[in-house]
C-alpha cells in the first residue's frame, strides 16, 4: 500500500513529536539567553526565523555576549554547521528528483532532529514516492515549535533576571547525547567521539570557542585514522 502525501505528512509530524521535548526547553533557553545577553527581542526571534540552527544560535549568542568579533562568530557557526553537509549528502539521493520549490525549503529546514527521523524513514521498506511530504511534516513541526519556544524564552528572559539558573540548557546536552551514542557502532566512530570530547575539554580555555573547532577537526581526523588502520569498515548508514 502506498502512503499518500497527507498520510506521509502526518507520519512525519508524529515521528518528530518526541524530539520536540528536547527542542522546547532548548528553544526557550535560547530566547531567554539572547535577550539577557543584550539582543533585541526582534533580533532574537529573527535569528530563529532566518538562521534556524539550534546549536549554532546558542553558541552565537554566547559568543556575542562575550564580545566576540562578528566574523569569528560566523566562522564558528560555519564549523558547527558542517555536520549538515553529511545530512544533506545522505538525503540528496532521495530528494534529487524534486523541483527547486521543494529543495530550497527542505534544505533550509534541515536539522539534526528532522534528519534522524527522515533518514530512518527513507531506509524503511515501501514506496518512497511521497516521502518528501514526511520530511516536510517533520521540518514544519520543528520550525514552528522552535519559533514558539524562542518567543516563550524571549518573554521569560525579559521578565526573569537570570534564566540560565533553571539549567534548561541541559536539554541540549541530553538531546545530543541521545543522538550521538546510538551512532557509535564501531571503533572509528568511538575514536572520533572520544578524541573530540577530550580535545574540547582540554581546549575549553581557548578564546572564541576556538577549542570547539579544534576538537571537531581532531575528532574527524581520529575517525579517519582509526578507520584507515583497521582497513575496510563495512559500509553503514549513519546514524
Amino acid at each position: 500500500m502506498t502512503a499518500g502525501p497527507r498520510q506521509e505528512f502526518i507520519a512525519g509530524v508524529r515521528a518528530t513529536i518526541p524530539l520536540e521535548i528536547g527542542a522546547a526547553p532548548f528553544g526557550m533557553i535560547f530566547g531567554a539567553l539572547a535577550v539577557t545577553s543584550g539582543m533585541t527581542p526582534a533580533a532574537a526571534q529573527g535569528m530563529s526565523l532566518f538562521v534556524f540552527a539550534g546549536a549554532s544560535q546558542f553558541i552565537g549568542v554566547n559568543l556575542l555576549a562575550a564580545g566576540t568579533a562578528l566574523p569569528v562568530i560566523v566562522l564558528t557557526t560555519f564549523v558547527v554547521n558542517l555536520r549538515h553537509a553529511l545530512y544533506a549528502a545522505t538525503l540528496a539521493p532521495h530528494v534529487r528528483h524534486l523541483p527547486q520549490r521543494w529543495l530550497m525549503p527542505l534544505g533550509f529546514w534541515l536539522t539534526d532532529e528532522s534528519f534522524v527521523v527522515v533518514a530512518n524513514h527513507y531506509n524503511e521498506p515501501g514506496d518512497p514516492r511521497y516521502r518528501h511530504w514526511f520530511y516536510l511534516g517533520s521540518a514544519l513541526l520543528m520550525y514552528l515549535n522552535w519559533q514558539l519556544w524562542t518567543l516563550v524564552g524571549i518573554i521569560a528572559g525579559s521578565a526573569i533576571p537570570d534564566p540560565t539558573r533553571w539549567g534548561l540548557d541541559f536539554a541540549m546536552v541530553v538531546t545530543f547525547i541521545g543522538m550521538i551514542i546510538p551512532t557509535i557502532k564501531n571503533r572509528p566512530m568511538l575514536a572520533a567521539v572520544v578524541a573530540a570530547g577530550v580535545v574540547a575539554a582540554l581546549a575549553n580555555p581557548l578564546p572564541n570557542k576556538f577549542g570547539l573547532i579544534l576538537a571537531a577537526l581532531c575528532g574527524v581526523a581520529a575517525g579517519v585514522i582509526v578507520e584507515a588502520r583497521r582497513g575496510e569498515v563495512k559500509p553503514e548508514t549513519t546514524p
Partner: protein
Amino acid sequence: MNEWLLILGMMLVTFGVRYPVMLLVGKLPMPDRVVRALRYVPPAVLAAIIVPSMLYPDGQTLDLSLQNSYLVAGVVGVILAWRTRNLLLTIVLGMGFFLLYRAVFGLT
C-alpha cells in the same frame, strides 16, 4: 545594525552548507574519501559541544564534583542512551533525573 548583520552572516553559512550539498550531491561526483570523513563530522561536532558544557558548567571553571549536576546527569544520560537506544526515553528520563537531582540536592 550589528545583530542583523550577524543574523545575515549566520544565515548565509547555515543555508550555504545545507542547500548546495543537497543540490549537488548525485549531480557532481563526491570523492569517496570526503564522504567517509564526513560521517565523523556530526558525532565529533556534537561531542565537542556537549563535553565542555558538562565539565565547565559556568563556562570557565572545571568542576568534577558531585555538585556538578550537568556532569552527573550527563553520565546518566550516556548510560540511558547506551542501554535504551531510545532518543525519547533518553531525553525524558535524562532531563527528569537532572531536575530531580538539582531539587534534591538544592543546587541552582
